């Protein structure tokens, strides 16, 4: 073998680029045709279908519309209700049994990709607990001079029957909202996010050089698990109206089904939304309960549909979305696969100018998103779920 043959054998055969990466690149290019945003930015909510983006030249004219913010109002609410009712049918037809807690010696495995908007200070905000400058600050940029960064982490949980969890967290590539931010970060020595700072945590590197840490804890927090991963949901009703009342009045005192209900306060609707989405995510929910949750959501006002939304794991699904608090500018999105009704991701997005201004980031930036990857019962800490 001569040196050129050796050289050609050095890297692995290049795989085709990911379809979503190609679509993002095309979208950025097409945006520049109109003198719009010059570069693709990571973890921005983009709307429109992948198929439309990849359809070639014919799609070019359509893309201008695809990057516009989703509409709002009665039409999108009606569309959301329709999609939720279809998802209910899909959910009910599933023959998947609700998950039972793992047997002694087994674990419930969950893999998730989490992206968080964090703030960091290019000069370092001072001294950390072990005498090292800490560049990344709290969850929210907020502080004067702080720059935003999107920190992706792959989280893997192995949870035993009593709720004890073994957790592995691997840091992904930090995303920046501008080239200037990225350059500032590199000039500062590419400091790690707080939770991966070797000065404050025991951090190792995996075979591909990515920082990771492993630890045991008495509970697996950070995703839906803090809401009770093995919660017994069998007591909840599987009729949509009854379920809605049950989640609106978890403390009891719900009006009877036949009574003329007074208009619900917004806060009660919001609580119901949060609890119904928890049911949709919970592995212990039966198909009938999930179907009831979808149907109950279809009756709640203020939910809008965003079709063809990508999650942070680059899968696409339909999203239902609502404002977390009226006027807050924070939008809760639940992205699900309409073919299976499975929840792909749970996200909060900065959707209003007020919230975006407070964080110093553009509207549409993900504030926090959890994409659920694989889950299931496994027999050891060396094993991960297949689906």
């Amino acid at each position, binding site marked *: 073998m001569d*040196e050129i*043959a050796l050289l050609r054998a050095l*890297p692995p055969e290049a795989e085709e*680029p990911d379809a979503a990466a190609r679509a993002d690149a095309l979208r950025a290019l097409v945006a520049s045709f109109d003198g719009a945003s010059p570069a693709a930015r990571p973890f921005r909510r983009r709307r429109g279908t992948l198929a439309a983006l990849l359809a070639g030249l014919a799609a070019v004219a359509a893309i201008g519309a695809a990057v516009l913010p989703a509409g709002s109002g009665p039409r999108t609410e009606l569309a959301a209700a329709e999609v939720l009712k279809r998802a209910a049918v899909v959910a009910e037809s599933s023959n998947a049994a609700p998950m039972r807690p793992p047997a002694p010696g087994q674990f419930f495995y969950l893999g998730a990709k989490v992206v968080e908007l964090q703030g960091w200070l290019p000069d370092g905000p001072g001294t950390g607990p072990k005498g090292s400058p800490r560049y990344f600050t709290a969850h929210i940029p907020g502080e004067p001079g702080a720059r935003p960064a999107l920190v992706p982490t792959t989280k893997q949980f192995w949870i035993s029957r009593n709720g004890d969890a073994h957790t592995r967290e691997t840091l992904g590539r930090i995303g920046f909202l501008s080239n200037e931010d990225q350059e500032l970060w590199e000039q500062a020595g590419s400091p790690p996010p707080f939770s991966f700072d070797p000065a404050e945590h025991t951090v190792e590197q995996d075979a591909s050089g990515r920082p990771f840490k492993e630890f045991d804890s008495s509970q697996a927090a950070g995703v839906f698990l803090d809401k009770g991963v093995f919660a017994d949901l069998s007591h909840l009703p599987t009729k949509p109206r009854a379920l809605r009342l049950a989640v609106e009045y978890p403390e009891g005192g719900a009006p009877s089904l036949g009574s003329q209900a007074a208009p619900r306060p917004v806060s009660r609707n919001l609580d119901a939304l949060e609890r119904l989405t928890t049911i949709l995510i919970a592995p212990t929910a039966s198909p009938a309960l999930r179907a009831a949750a979808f149907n109950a959501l279809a009756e709640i006002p203020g939910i809008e549909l965003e079709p063809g939304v990508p999650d942070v794991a680059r899968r696409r699904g339909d999203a239902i979305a609502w404002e977390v608090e009226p006027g807050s500018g924070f939008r809760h999105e639940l992205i699900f696969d309409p073919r299976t009704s499975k929840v792909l991701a749970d996200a909060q997005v900065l959707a209003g100018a007020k919230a975006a201004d407070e964080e110093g980031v553009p509207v549409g930036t993900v504030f926090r998103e959890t994409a659920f990857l694989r889950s299931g019962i496994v027999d050891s800490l060396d094993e991960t779920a297949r689906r």
Partner: protein
Amino acid sequence: MGQPLPDNAAIAASIDDPAEFAAVFHRHFDVVHGYIRKRAGVLLADDLAAQTFLVAFDRRASFDQSWASARPWLLGIATNLIHGKRRQERRQLRAYGRAGAEIGFDPLEGTEARADAERLRPQLATVLAALPKAELDPLLLYAWAELGYAEIAAALEVPVGTVKSRLSRARRRIREQLRLQGATEEQRQIATLEVDHG
């Protein structure tokens, strides 16, 4: 439906009608992405490949219309963008030398050749990571992007003679380094005996 425009015609048409430039994207994105991925790693490939086409679109008026294919021009832009990520590129190149890294053997190569490639991989990766970019660029455009001399010259905007001499220097440097570092202990002992008794 008519024949698709060649790159130079599509780029010329895109001056007035930007949408024409999409044909260039569809034709070359995968190759550009693959080249960047090999040099700078998968983590940077998505962003740099996207940036390559944004830069190309901005500079389309300066494209040399005597070239029918935009591939050398695009790979030249990609190469310049990779220069801005030199540290990550070096890390990627060194990673190819680590034990357990995937290696793209040609299945038709004999087992001896495979053994050679496997044995020399760490040294080769080290030499590559240390090559000056003036030599690394033509070498990788030749070996990984499979461009010819004239295409590399167009990509790097240097004369063909310069490409040949830099390529030759890079290849010689690799051969020398591999011979020095790549020899087995047995070969070193034989060489020592030859010197001692030669």
